[in-house]
């Protein structure tokens, strides 16, 4: 299994490099005010300020064009201020804050930075235990039959139900494909390409073409529709017909990746590789899903001291994991020569130790987790919560 996953990840990374190559243009980005930068990736574009610091939206901003984040909230999540003479443009609006000044909003959602973002491009504000804040980003346009999904394996294309999409290396599309403009007044005649595939009757038992209904037209860049031998219409992304795999049992499974099929190889439709992990990280299967683990496959827990403010003392305090806390939790201490990797940073804890942190939150193992895959350290309304490989909160731990 580990071997296959290693192979899969190598394949995924290779595909990501291919997909993100010069021939595959980044998604188009909308115009933006002078205070904002648009950072495009093959899967999406992300809003940042001029220093490259990630911008966020807040779920509690429910009234269009009105911010609900003030005082302590605004200290932690500084609004992206707009000059007094800023003018709205396109989908960008300027809102007047109830405290003072003006703030930029995109599609009526006010924009914020996160003070604990440690470096340009970091997204520490999007965390599983506090899912009210989201990176201001938008996935590339897709037809209604497909979408972009952020998974443990990176940003991948999936069908409408979240099942991973694949391409077969031996597939070819011949003839011309015509993309129809989204503002076409009426459906024009389409010159569709034809799919030349080695995936015949037996192969199609497991590999299901992502079918486009007879009246569908492609309006998204890089997407087209091509005809199969049986005259069914199949969605094509950047010249590659797309399939789902019968061996995938749930959304974001990528069991088909790397398989040899139809005299070629199958690749999951990966747009953007996942963030890097330190080389000592392992993964463990648990009752709550796949978690990130240490080299002995003990579950890693993030500790969010700020969630602890109502718990005055004992256990873990608002300052960090104090002596009582250390009776149960063991800091993940970094080697002397350790270097930060992506969202993984190094902090000095309250005991003066150099400790690994993920998205700025210190990492621990739990002493009573006796074997790989145990998650008994999930405690106290997620003040300690397992670090999920897929991101997000572990189901059933009291959060989202």
């Amino acid at each position: 299994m580990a071997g296959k996953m290693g192979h899969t990840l190598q394949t995924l990374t290779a595909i990501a490099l291919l997909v993100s190559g010069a021939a595959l243009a980044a998604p188009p980005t909308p115009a933006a005010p002078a205070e904002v930068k648009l950072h495009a990736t093959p899967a999406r574009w992300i809003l940042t300020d001029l220093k490259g610091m990630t911008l966020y939206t807040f779920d509690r901003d429910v009234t269009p064009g009105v911010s609900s984040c003030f005082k302590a909230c605004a200290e932690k999540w500084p609004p992206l201020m707009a000059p007094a003479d800023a003018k709205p443009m396109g989908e960008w609006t300027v809102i007047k804050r109830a405290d003072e000044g003006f703030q930029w909003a995109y599609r009526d959602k006010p924009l914020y930075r996160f003070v604990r973002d440690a470096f340009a491009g970091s997204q520490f504000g999007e965390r599983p235990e506090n899912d009210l804040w989201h990176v201001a980003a938008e996935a590339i346009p897709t037809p209604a039959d497909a979408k972009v999904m952020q998974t443990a394996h990176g940003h991948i294309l999936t069908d409408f139900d979240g099942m991973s999409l694949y391409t077969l290396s031996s597939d070819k599309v011949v003839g011309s494909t015509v993309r129809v403009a989204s503002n076409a007044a009426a459906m024009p005649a389409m010159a569709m390409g034809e799919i030349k595939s080695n995936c015949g009757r037996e192969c199609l038992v497991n590999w299901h073409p992502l079918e486009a209904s007879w009246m569908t037209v492609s309006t998204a860049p890089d997407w087209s529709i091509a005809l199969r031998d049986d005259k069914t219409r199949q969605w094509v992304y950047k010249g590659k017909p797309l399939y789902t795999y019968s061996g995938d049992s749930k959304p974001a499974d990528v069991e088909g990746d790397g398989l040899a099929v139809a005299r070629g190889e199958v690749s999951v439709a990966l747009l953007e590789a996942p963030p890097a992990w330190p080389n000592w990280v392992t993964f463990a299967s648990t009752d709550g899903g796949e978690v990130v683990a240490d080299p002995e496959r003990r579950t890693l827990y993030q500790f969010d001291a700020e969630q602890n403010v109502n718990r005055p003392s004992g256990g873990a305090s608002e300052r960090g994991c104090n002596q009582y806390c250390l009776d149960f939790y063991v800091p993940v201490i970094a080697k002397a020569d350790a270097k930060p990797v992506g969202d993984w940073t190094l902090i000095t804890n309250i005991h003066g130790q150099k400790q690994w942190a993920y998205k700025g939150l210190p990492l621990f193992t739990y002493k009573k987790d006796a074997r790989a895959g145990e998650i008994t350290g999930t405690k106290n309304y997620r003040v300690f919560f397992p670090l999920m490989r897929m991101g997000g909160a572990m189901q059933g731990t009291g959060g989202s």
Partner: protein
Amino acid sequence: MVSLSPIPSSIFRPSLRAAAGAGLVAVLAALTPAKAGDPTSKTLGFAVTTFNTAMYESRFMDECPQGINATNDEFWWRGLSKEERGRLTNNGDMTQIARQHIANHRGPNGEDICQVPTAVKDPPLYTVRGKLAYGMKLDGTDDGKDTPKSCKHEKFTGVDGTPAIDNQLYRVLGCVYGWRSIGHIETAANGHRQTNGLGMILIEVSGVDDARNDDDVTISFYRSVDTFTFGASASPLPYSTYRIDYDGEKPRYGDSIKGKIVDGVLKTTVPGDVKLPFYANQSFQTMQLMDTQIELKINADGSAADGVIGGYYSTQQLWEYIGEQGWQPTGLYTCPGIYAAIQKLADGHKDPKTGECTSISSAFKIKTVAGFIKHRDGGDKPNKIAQAQ
């Protein structure tokens, strides 16, 4: 790979066929081929819908003559002056759950007494004084005497009259509000399990030649990755398909014990140690139930089976769960009191060095619905048959 092919009807007695009528079709549907080398033996599958600490509650609560136990919050409250109560509770306006956080930190140095239950000493827990309980005879003795493996304890009589029942867990928790039927701990846990599908136990009975009487079957326990299908009354429906949880090619659970079926009642013949998935009130656990026995009465139509599973529960694991619940809205009990009672009443797995017992006899009432249990394509490695040491 699940096999849905029907079984030979000969494994049912004619009398059952006559009695069950249309229900027989359902039984047939829930039976699936089992042993690769024995094409005639079949498998029964059940999904556990409720899993409750087995509590015997008499009409007038005779089992708890001292009453119901006080809570962390109450012990904390008792220790405060009126001025302190006002100061610490925003002049009485603080919500119960917010106050619970403070009450739990009533250790002399602010320790959380559910994490460090020895930080304070509460009055002894009111424990069960009644004579009846659900459960099994686990220690092999008739009188609960001290043995090299077990600690001296008082026996119960089974609710059905069976003598020499061991269930010290009931003795500990029987007079604690949250675990009784009026409390919320078990109700909330079952509700969560049914809605989010976490901690779902599958019971697979394989090697079945006769679904009503078979002297040699294997009982295996798995975790499901699929949730229940509910009917219009919001009750889990029988005959859904449940996939086993795998880590690669191996089931993440899958311990087995040997048993038999007598007149439709599944019973253990050789107790064994099994791991069970456990999820309740936001806590996960790989529950280690040692010397496990089970007794399940299978409905005449095969659509469900209800009964009791018992065994020795590690006191460390038990405390891990109860201590964590101290934070929850359901945590209305005294952590130090329960902790001390568990240590005092533990009766199994005596540590030869200290002479102290490290597990506690327990019993859990379970309800199940019949279902198809799906193994991975190509099958998985045979599970070892667990056997008590």
